[in-house]
């Protein structure tokens, strides 16, 4: 497996969706290639970072107002036209 092959299969490697023989080839390549190992590490770190990063939620007052609007809309949907 070349570096280009490894990059092509990187997501499948990370997701565990490579066929067993391809996975073995990828692991053999990674064991001897510092550059690809770094690409793998930093890609996995990228995923972890976004998974762990807090993104802003609706602030409480807007959240409450929106829920009240939706409750009113829900009740109205029951009104006979």
């Amino acid at each position, binding site marked *: 497996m070349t570096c280009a092959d490894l990059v092509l299969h990187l997501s499948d490697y*990370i997701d565990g969706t490579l066929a067993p023989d391809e996975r073995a080839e990828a692991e053999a390549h990674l064991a001897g290639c510092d550059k690809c190992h770094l690409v793998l590490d930093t890609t996995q770190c990228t995923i972890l970072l976004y998974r762990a990063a807090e993104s802003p939620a609706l602030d409480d007052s807007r959240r409450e107002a*929106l*829920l009240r609007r939706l409750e009113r809309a829900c009740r109205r949907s*029951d009104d006979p036209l």
Partner: protein
Amino acid sequence: MSASGPAAGLSRLDEVACLESMRRGDPTCLGGFFEAWGDRIYRLSLRLTGDPAAAEDVVQEAFLKLMAGADRIEGRSRLATWLYRVAYNASIDRLRELRRTAPLPEEEGDASSPVPALLVDFLSPEEMLEDAETRRALDEAITAVPPTLRAAFLLRDVEGLSTAEAAEALSVTETNLKVRLHRARLLLRERLSAFMAGRRERREGRA
């Protein structure tokens, strides 16, 4: 994986009963659904549109549709997938309005992967997330990724949907979803690598 599927505590049976009652105009269950899904839809939409008001509109639209068309959520289309699809489509519509431009780039034709160019060590995720500059860099990097690729990344890697679920939510094939996800990951990695390289240079320059 933190959040997968309807995760948020309702069993399939409760879900069906709750959807049915909302459709009849009883909002008793609405609070629970909102608790489970409101913020998740908001965050996805905010990261797609970059606009808090648009993201709030998207949450409202998704819930109005949920209450109006709950009977259409069935079989293959589980609640999670259904809600994410509505939220994605509404977000892309808002994004188009915000940009007032020609159709968004689809980024589908080009299946080639970005070639990793920058090779820089990252710090641990914990160390990186403690740093305000890094958190800004995360926001800037994801904003720079085309929305169709960004959505694949957010649904799979952040929201924890399976490939099949994310593909259904975005109305693409699983193969296409995987291509988008791979490209998004590599683009984000490259941008964060550039940030880390710059950060290291700045710190060494000061030392």
